[in-house]
């Protein structure tokens, strides 16, 4: 994914917003918004590229108190298409006026769960035919999951409590695999060296990237070297 790595820029609302903008561009989405609830302080962090008029309306009417995207989606482990929400009064009070501001109710929310009981929600919309929407979902869901966790972890790390706890620890195998990547070995070669399948190498790389808050393996290697977890080759 060709979007900014939040691990390389200062944590700020502008950068989170840039991240959301770039994610929408790359994944062919109209709007994106992120919200998280700090389990200890109860504080809500939110970032969105919605039109300002809609943001003002949302805040003025305190729609965050009833928005099903915030209160229902977190109950699922999988992204929740808004079609799944009951068309009750709460839904109507949020999604009907949104249409008046040019925001379609064709969207979905990716629920994110962090290691400390922290939870986040990344919502995206796209105005298009149902057929196109289904096709787009299949195409972007993996990248959307990765983007959601990257953004959530970055927001959580800047937040006092969880920030102090830092990154999730890498396993010996993950460090070993990153060390071989740093030495210029390809996945297949690393699999042969360690006598594991190349897919097992891939899952260790995937996990290392997510733990280090990196979007690419190159960034993960750089960060692991920077943190003294592996040696530069």
């Amino acid at each position, binding site marked *: 994914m060709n979007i900014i790595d939040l691990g390389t820029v200062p944590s700020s609302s502008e950068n989170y917003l840039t991240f959301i903008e770039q994610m929408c561009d790359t994944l062919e989405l109209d709007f994106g918004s992120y919200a998280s609830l700090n389990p200890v302080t109860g504080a809500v962090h939110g970032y969105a590229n919605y039109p300002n008029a809609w943001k003002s309306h949302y805040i003025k009417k305190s729609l965050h108190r009833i928005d099903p995207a915030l209160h*229902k989606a*977190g*109950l*699922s*482990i*999988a*992204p*929740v298409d808004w079609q*799944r929400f009951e068309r009750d009064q709460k839904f109507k009070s949020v999604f009907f006026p949104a249409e008046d501001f040019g925001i379609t109710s064709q969207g979905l929310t990716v629920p*994110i*769960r*962090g*290691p400390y*009981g922290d*939870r986040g929600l990344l919502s995206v919309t796209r105005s298009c035919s149902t057929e196109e929407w289904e096709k787009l*979902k*299949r195409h*972007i*869901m*993996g*990248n*959307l*999951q*990765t983007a*959601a*966790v*990257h953004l959530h972890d970055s927001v959580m790390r800047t937040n006092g409590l969880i920030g102090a706890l830092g990154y*999730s*620890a*890498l*396993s*010996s*195998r*993950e460090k070993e695999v990153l060390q071989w990547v740093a030495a210029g070995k390809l996945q297949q070669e690393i699999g042969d060296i360690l006598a*594991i*399948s190349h*897919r*097992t190498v891939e*899952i*260790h790389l*995937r*996990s290392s*990237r*997510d*733990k280090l808050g990196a979007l690419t393996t190159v960034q993960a290697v750089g960060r692991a070297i920077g943190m003294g977890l592996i040696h530069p080759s």
Partner: protein
Amino acid sequence: MIVIVDSLNAHEHSDLLIKMHQLRAQVFSGRLGWDVKVIDGMERDEFDELDPAHVVSVDDEGRVVGCMRLLQTTGPHMLTDVFSCLLDGEPPLRSARVWEATRFCVDTNLPGRGIARNSISYVTSEVMIGAFEYGIAAGISDAVAVIDPVMNRVMKRSGNAPYGYLGSPHAMGKVTALAALMDCSDERIARIREFSGIHHDVFNVSVPEVIRK
């Protein structure tokens, strides 16, 4: 057929959840002898409080004959805690695109044999197809599953062999448990379907006549 039950739709499937917890008690406490909590004939643990998703296999008579519990590896899950021994003390993997599957079980009192409908192998395959299709739609690329050696053998024989394992097998009750890795892919689903002869939509109630016989 397969029903995905999570905290979003649990209120619509309360009877399925009761039957599922009863099946889990029968398998994990009874047959496998794991040290699990059973209250009123139902097995439940603290991970059931974390809004997991359950892949539930229901037969034509409405009985729960198989199930599996899924959690995101980005948040608290069993390998970070109860099953950490399986990873030899190493930190568990954590990825936006990897789910953890636990409490995978099938009713071994099923009458059918071989790959016949209602056999152990059929239900195992049905649960797996349901879980992988649900995972793919959610953008999931891989799953790490805590399984016992019997399940491991059933999977290897049914076009569904794990591509790797994490840590090492450890004794748990009467058997050992191990953490197996599986790709959540169309190829794997095709292999399981080919082996089991399940070609219909597993989430749909109506099953073709040929398979019903």
